[in-house]
């Protein structure tokens, strides 16, 4: 039995379970709990060209079966990551996927160039960020903008490029195809949903930033539908993200068409869930007599 999955000719994950961006920091804390080498891959906190401070607190608010975060993309910046965090991560026998973003096309391209270095396995481009130059609308909300952005980033790096889609769009398939045409190697489906929470006692928003992004099991049924939809339309691999907490969820997302999954919120609650999920997934494969993960991917029976 082989639980590895090939994402691109140059990128094979040892198993389909990755950490998600923003809930794993740069891996150090988790490394004290378990051996990171058992992961299919580590996705880093989203990086920008310069260090970023993030939003005022409260930055997190719990909701029914989910949480809203408005961290504000706080990160140490690409240079500090390369100097201080990457060497640490490279000790482990796992794929290192660097999540990044910019506030202009130029910044995205600069980031892609800067991160085109040894030790990084792939880049994940977060496009749920406002394009400051274009009046603040998100890069991930207009297919033309997304296609161009992807194409420019594509030519700036030799790494496999994942484009992480914004879920709250009218036609997710159209966005997926735009990224694919731009040269994306894989599509991460999807980011958090715009959301908010209000304190009725104070009549104020709970989050310092007023709004944030909803994640966790609450959104899983929507994420599953998005993965199914996108994987029917796109011909590049889909990486699922949204509410995955158990090995059962992993199997469900693979059946829906994902090639791999990212675990975010669940690892905040249960930092050791990775080991359980990977073990449970391998057991499932064994019990079902499956030889390779490809026997699951997209194999949902809908007749």
């Amino acid at each position, binding site marked *: 039995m082989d639980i590895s999955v090939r994402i691109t000719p140059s990128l094979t994950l040892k198993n389909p379970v990755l950490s998600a961006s923003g809930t794993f920091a740069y891996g150090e*804390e988790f490394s004290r709990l378990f051996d990171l080498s058992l992961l299919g891959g580590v996705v880093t906190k989203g990086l920008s060209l310069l260090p970023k401070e993030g939003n005022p*607190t409260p930055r997190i608010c719990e909701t029914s079966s989910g949480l809203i975060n408005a961290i504000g993309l706080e990160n140490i910046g690409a240079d500090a990551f390369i100097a201080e965090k990457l060497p640490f991560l490279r000790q482990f026998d796992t794929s290192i996927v660097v999540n990044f973003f910019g506030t202009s096309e130029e910044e995205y391209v600069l980031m892609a160039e800067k991160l085109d270095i040894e030790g990084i396995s792939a880049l994940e481009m977060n496009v749920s960020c406002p394009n400051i130059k274009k009046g603040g609308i998100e890069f991930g909300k207009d297919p033309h903008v997304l296609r161009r952005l992807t194409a420019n980033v594509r030519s700036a790096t030799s790494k496999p490029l994942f484009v992480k889609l914004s879920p709250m769009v009218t036609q997710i398939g159209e966005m997926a195809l735009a990224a694919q045409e731009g040269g994306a190697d894989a599509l991460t489906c999807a980011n958090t949903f715009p959301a908010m929470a209000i304190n009725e006692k104070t009549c104020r928003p709970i989050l310092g930033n007023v709004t944030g992004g909803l994640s966790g099991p609450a959104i899983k049924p929507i994420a599953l539908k998005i993965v199914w939809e996108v994987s029917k339309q796109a011909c590049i691999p889909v990486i699922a993200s949204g509410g995955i907490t158990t090995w059962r969820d992993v199997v469900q997302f693979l059946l829906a068409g994902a090639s791999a999954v990212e675990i975010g919120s669940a690892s*905040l609650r249960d930092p050791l869930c990775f080991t359980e999920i990977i073990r449970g997934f391998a057991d499932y494969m064994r019990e079902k007599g499956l030889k390779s993960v490809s026997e699951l991917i997209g194999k949902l029976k809908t007749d």
Partner: protein
Amino acid sequence: MKEREAVVQDNREVATDTFLMTLACDFPPFTPGQFLMLRINSTCDPFLRRPLAILSLKGDSLEILYKVKGSGTSLLAGKRPGDVMSALGPLGNGFSTPGQDEEAIYIAGGTGLPPILALAEKVRRGRLIIGAFGENDIPLWNRISSIRDVHAQATTEDGSFGKKGLATEALKDLLHEISQPSIIYACGPEGMLREITEQARMFGARCEVSLEEYMACGFGVCSACVVKTSEDSRKVCAQGPVFDAFSIKWRD
């Protein structure tokens, strides 16, 4: 930091809406001020663990003291002996130990009591002030007032127990009395901590405060719980919850 099963052994109301819970839990030793993230339920609502200070740990018997606020602590209050939860910890840095010739002053308001009591019970010398709204809001007074070599006093806003007034007023009186160098350990509402920091500054005392922030992970990976210090922004869960009071940039 370890993740461990925590089996409820006892769970009793010791003040209004305030419960003392004993857990059987094979936990590493802790420093007072450290906390644990407790997963209270197995379903997804509530989803996150809850941060709770460690009050004591003797053998595999761990105590927490909590006030019922919302969904998580309500579920906690409904637990019975035998119920199983999951504890992650010990987390955070914890308080320092007072210097040999320093007078230790412990001061707690509201749910700030557990880490302060834990510290006083470890150091076993100094003076402790606990502030509450009324008599019924003071848990464990017998235990607090009988710590050897710790002189404890209570203040209540309604005057129903101890001195009428605020804990910070009692602190001021105390600081006037004391001549030797002192260190203040404080935990409680933010306004109280700011006031204590001011007094510490005026009286030239050292001061450590334990902060509360909304937390998601509790071990430093999500950046939910930051606080601004004079140097940079820090994670309360991993670089705190205890900070040098003078380093904190308090919110307006």
